[in-house]
């Protein structure tokens, strides 16, 4: 019994050592654009966290006498058709984007990883069933799938999160399955099995930790996709209910006043781009550092 514990202790020493971590950070931040991305992400988290202190106005309060103002000293980005301050709404909108991004990716990653793990580890029937199911899910355009799932579950932000989470699951399942299939063939897995480790112990101790690097890269890269999907859905009018501030919905509201006040549509779009760009660049940097094989995949 003691011996068994000892051996599994030894084989645990695979995850990155300190020197490795330093190498990863160095490779990652050699490109300036990655540093820029990281700064934008940190700024966005701060903005989202301190929105009530940063926003100059209440983002939800209508103020009709001040409706549709161009940018001026009081309203840096002008006001919308209900007199609400665009800047304040963009600041609050960052909360929605970040929340949807993080939670939906969490759902997609945990669901996809579990499915991929089972499919890759047990092969045979579970593999066929799961992977064909994933193939079927992949046959639906993501935007349409999210739209339909969101409408099946009914509007609401939490349902949009679930919808995007489900739509993005496929990528994780496929990556995880492929990873597991290769990692399973390693000697340390066979060694673990030879001393009688159970399937679940092998999965948790040996397989999952070794699968993580490319998945971390994917998580970062997909934050951008999730934020874009949320923006698209809220542009179509799904998810956020008025007077809530979501960037996609703001773009749509501003569309009606495009000729006179293009900034109403332009400003929230630039916010979306900045954030998505930041996550993509940091994802690229992480990929170069952690897993060069993924280079170029979206």
């Amino acid at each position, binding site marked *: 019994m003691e011996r068994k514990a000892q051996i599994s202790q030894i084989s645990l020493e695979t995850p990155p050592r300190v020197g490795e971590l330093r190498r990863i950070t160095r490779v990652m931040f050699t490109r300036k654009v990655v540093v820029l991305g990281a700064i934008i992400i940190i700024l966005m988290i701060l903005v989202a966290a301190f929105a009530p202190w940063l926003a100059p106005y209440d983002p939800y309060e209508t103020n009709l006498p001040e409706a549709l103002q161009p940018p001026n000293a009081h309203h840096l980005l002008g006001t919308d058709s209900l007199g609400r301050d665009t800047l304040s709404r963009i600041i609050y909108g960052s909360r929605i984007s970040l929340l949807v991004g993080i939670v939906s990716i969490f759902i997609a990653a945990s669901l996809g990883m579990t499915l991929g793990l089972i499919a890759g580890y047990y092969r045979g029937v579970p593999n066929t069933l799961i992977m*064909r199911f994933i193939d079927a899910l*992949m046959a639906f355009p993501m935007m349409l799938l999210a*739209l339909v799932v969101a409408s*099946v579950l009914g509007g609401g932000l939490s349902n949009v999160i679930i919808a995007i989470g489900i739509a993005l699951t496929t990528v994780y399942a496929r990556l995880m399955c492929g990873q597991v299939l290769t990692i399973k063939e390693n000697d340390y897995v066979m060694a673990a099995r030879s001393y009688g480790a159970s399937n679940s112990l092998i999965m948790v101790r040996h397989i999952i930790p070794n699968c993580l690097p490319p998945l971390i890269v994917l998580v970062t890269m997909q934050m*951008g996709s999730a934020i874009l999907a949320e923006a*698209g859905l809220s542009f*179509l009018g799904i998810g956020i209910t008025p007077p809530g501030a979501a960037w996609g919905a703001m773009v749509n509201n501003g569309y009606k006043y*495009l000729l006179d006040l293009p900034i109403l549509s332009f400003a929230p779009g630039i916010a979306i781009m900045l954030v998505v760009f930041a996550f993509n660049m940091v994802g690229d940097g992480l990929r170069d550092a952690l897993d060069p094989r993924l280079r*170029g995949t979206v």
Partner: protein
Amino acid sequence: MGTYIIRRLIQSVFVIIIVTCLVFVVIRFLPGDPILVYLSQQQVDTFTIEQLNKARAEFGLDKPIPVQYIYWIKDLFRGDLGMSLFYREHVSALIAERVPVTLYLGLIAFVISQILGITFGTISALRRGSRTDTAVTLVANLGITVPIFWLGILLIYFFGLKLNWLPRFGYTSPFVDFVQSLRQAILPVICLAIFPLAASARQTRSSMLEVIRQDYVRTAWSKGLRERVIVMKHVLKNGLIPVVTLAGIGLSLILGGSVLVETVFNIPGMGRLGVEAVFSQDYAIIQAIILIMAVMIVTVNLLVDISYGWLDPRVRYG
């Protein structure tokens, strides 16, 4: 190669069966009673329970769900996609009007995105570190970043409203007025193509860079072959293998993007019909649209896999 194709074909059929089950089950969970949507407000007020049930039976909505599924599949094989509860028309007729619109724009966008993506990616890899490379990389990174509905609005503002060069919205069949049709297609096609174009440029660039480092390319150089021959015969052929797999995803992105782009440009295609159907809780239409799109994507993926097996013999026996 024959067995490989047959194996992939069977897999695709299996996938399509799962797709139909998924579509059917998901759609049945849509909120709202479609019969109440179908009947006018006045009818709902005056109708008795019996009359409502009769209307339900007329659409087969009173049967158990597995039975409804079998009926639906039977009808599908007859080309009958059901009745739209909202438009009170055959879905197949409605869809037949809309599919060509989406396909017209989508296929142009697809071809442009693949050709330009591969060209830009290749040039950028061959001239690594040059100004062209920097420009292509920057544009590609922006391309996978920009929300396409927002890009559409931006283009409408500059090319439609400010410069007045191009029509701001709408669709004309190329058979009715070819020039107008093309002018109206330019902006939506840019929006549809931008993401797959950027993605394929990024993929091409990195996979070319990988191939350029290979020994056989160095050998080709040392043999004194001309750059064009090396690029065409050695680099492109091998570098494009991973790019081919992206083609299926490219089509999926374009069809998904049509939902947003057709809404922005007010184009009567499948995407906008889908959005309207979601809001009017029109089961039959949503079912038909996601089914058609899924079948298109499965078909393209099958073609991609077959060409993949043809390009890379290792895949066939894998």
